[in-house]
């Protein structure tokens, strides 16, 4: 054998060796198969809504893959980088701007216009708006999530208040009255200082944008400073303990013991409270919409949407599945199985939701939702709000310092976005 002849064959062997794994990585495409990614409990429950879809669409089989919530966001981004996204999926609605910016999800406007099931006016406007980026709709709300007040009716009544507060002034007064009643070892409200949501909810009530259209932080606005001031006051005057959620071992037993009277949390806790609170406490707690600076206030629009990924093979079938999951009947059934609140008004008039006293406050709150700023960098800014909010609660910084620090951090984070805006590339 000569060297001249062996060289190319060696190269060919190496080429084969290098090529073989690539070929094995190729996607195994099955005709008529629709891949759906869904997270946690939703991923489990959605399976029971699939058979009805398959009877109506005999040519299509749906494969549901469950992702854990904690890894879902990373998984979506890495799958996009590796061109391995499914046809459609559940997407946290704060991720929509990011996925739209990288072109991972497809706009749905034409399909919505032609649809008899998905009508924008049927949805609560605040949550519908979370799916809109740059004038285009990228997702259909699947369930909605927001935070409001859970409170102890008996403690509030002992402090002299028959009705829950509606304004910040009344809220503060009732908390001071509770604190005066319960003494130094108990508190009026629980706001775990490692959770940014309550502070952000107070912030969006002001009606001023948190991020400007030019890509700068707007945390030094008079409105957000008012929210920071209110938040700091709760800790400074001992109405709220400066504790993280891991320090409150068991929030349900502490609520039952009366460690705090108010708690800002989401709809999943209705079920948890019913299940975990001692029977004697039934009827002594309920929910109320979030108070605002001068009247009923807004809260953040959270939850998940259904979106079609740009590289989906059969977008028509994917859309049919979204429509199937969006009918009022599917939504009611989904609510019954998960406790997730439906984002459409007509799913609230029937079933268990219509008569449940605990969800009444949520129904009211859903009409007053504000989306978080719709920029890909939002999660990073939330991380900064968490850090600065914790410093504010611990009294390490003043309101002015906190606002300036938030703007400084946001401006640094948004540098690339401003560059993109300058070139007309940012949505």
């Amino acid at each position, binding site marked *: 054998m000569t060297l001249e002849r062996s060289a190319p064959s060696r190269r060919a062997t*190496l080429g084969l060796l290098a090529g073989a794994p690539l070929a094995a990585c190729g996607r195994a495409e099955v005709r008529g198969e629709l891949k759906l990614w869904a997270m946690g409990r939703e991923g489990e429950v959605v399976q029971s809504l699939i058979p009805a879809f398959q009877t109506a669409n005999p040519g299509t089989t749906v494969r549901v893959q469950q992702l854990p919530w904690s890894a879902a966001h990373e998984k979506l981004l890495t799958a996009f980088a590796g061109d391995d996204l499914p046809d459609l999926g559940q997407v946290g609605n704060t991720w929509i701007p990011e996925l739209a910016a990288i072109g991972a999800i497809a706009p749905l406007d034409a399909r919505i216009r032609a649809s008899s099931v998905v009508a924008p006016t049927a949805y609560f406007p605040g949550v519908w708006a979370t799916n809109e980026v740059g004038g285009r709709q990228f997702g259909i709300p699947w369930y909605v999530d927001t935070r409001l007040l859970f409170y102890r009716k008996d403690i509030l009544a002992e402090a002299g208040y028959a009705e829950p507060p509606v304004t910040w002034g009344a809220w503060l007064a009732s908390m001071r009255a509770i604190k005066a009643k319960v003494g130094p070892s108990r508190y009026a409200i629980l706001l775990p200082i*490692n959770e940014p949501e309550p502070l952000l909810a107070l912030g969006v009530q002001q009606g001023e944008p948190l991020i400007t259209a030019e890509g700068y932080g707007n945390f030094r606005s008079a409105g957000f400073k008012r929210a920071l001031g209110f938040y700091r006051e709760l800790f400074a005057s001992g109405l709220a303990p400066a504790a993280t959620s891991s*320090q409150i*071992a068991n929030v349900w037993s502490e609520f039952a013991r009366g460690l705090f009277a108010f708690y800002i949390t989401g709809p999943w806790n209705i079920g948890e409270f019913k299940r975990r609170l001692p029977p004697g406490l039934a009827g002594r707690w309920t929910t109320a919409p979030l108070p605002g600076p001068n009247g009923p206030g807004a809260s953040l629009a959270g939850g998940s949407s259904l979106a079609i990924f740009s590289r989906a093979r059969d977008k028509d079938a994917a859309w049919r599945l979204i429509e199937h999951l969006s009918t009022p009947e599917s939504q009611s059934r989904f609510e019954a199985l998960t406790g997730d609140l439906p984002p459409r008004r007509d799913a609230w008039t029937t079933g268990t939701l219509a008569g449940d006293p605990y969800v009444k406050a949520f129904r009211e709150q859903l009409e007053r939702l504000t989306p978080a700023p719709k920029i890909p960098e939002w*999660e990073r800014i939330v991380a900064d709000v968490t*850090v600065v909010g914790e410093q504010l609660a611990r009294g390490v910084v003043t309101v002015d310092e906190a606002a300036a620090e938030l703007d400084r951090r946001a401006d640094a984070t948004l540098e690339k976005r401003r560059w993109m805006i300058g070139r007309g590339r940012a949505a």
Partner: protein
Amino acid sequence: MTARALGTSTAGWLFVAPAVSVIGVFFAVPVFLALALSFTDFDIYALASLKNLRFVGLGNYLLLLRTPLFWRALGNTLYFVIVGVPLSVGASLGAALLLNAKAARWKPVFRTAMFAPVVTSLVAVAVIWRYLLHAKYGLINYALSGIGVRPIDWLGDPHWAMPAIILFAVWKNFGYNMVILLAGLQTIPEDLYEAARIDGASTFQQLRHVTMPSLGPVILLVTILTMAGYFQLFAEPYVMTQGGPLQSTVSVLYFMYEQGFKFWNLGVASAVAFMLFLLMFAITMAQLLLSRRQGVA
């Protein structure tokens, strides 16, 4: 042409080619790409289109030097290394000496028990440690209350979270070094101790003048390995505290993970990786030089 005509160097290259290509594909190329990545601002926008990628030179490195959280992470990591490594090696040495003592009984049982934490899953034991460290119901605070110490909020107090992580890491890792040190102890000839005893050396003097010098190179190796491992602190804060409270347990690697996989700032994350590499390289070199000057290695 016969095989003899092949130059010896060609034949040599042929033999090492598989290994070299594996090292090239799985080590050299990724490291080079990561270095290149650290000079760009690769982020979520660049993931969308490479047109949005900017070459920033040393910008990421300069940005890191101006980022308070990076310094915080570096400080936390150094705290962990400076306190954790001596404690860890000390615990390993103590355990190895105890196991090597002539009076010790049930040696295999103790050896297995002390090595067990190394082979158990970190996530599983972290769950148990979270219970042990719990401020109200934890066993550690219960034991401390027995000697009159007020309850410590181990994972909730910014001052105590890192000591708790160190305690956990030392417990988790000391068994590994213990086995290496034990092997080193068993190679020390018995006649050295005999000679020392005849010269009237006490047990402590034997330890100081016979055991320690003979064990020098092993201790150096163990210290370097432990340090390299401890600089890469990640899993413990990831499962126990998620970097909190007040970022007191954010390590360099945890910071890198957040930048890279949570926020997709791969440019910055790569720069962090190279900064950490340079730091570890410098410290290991300094340590080697120091011990060479003292004649240990």
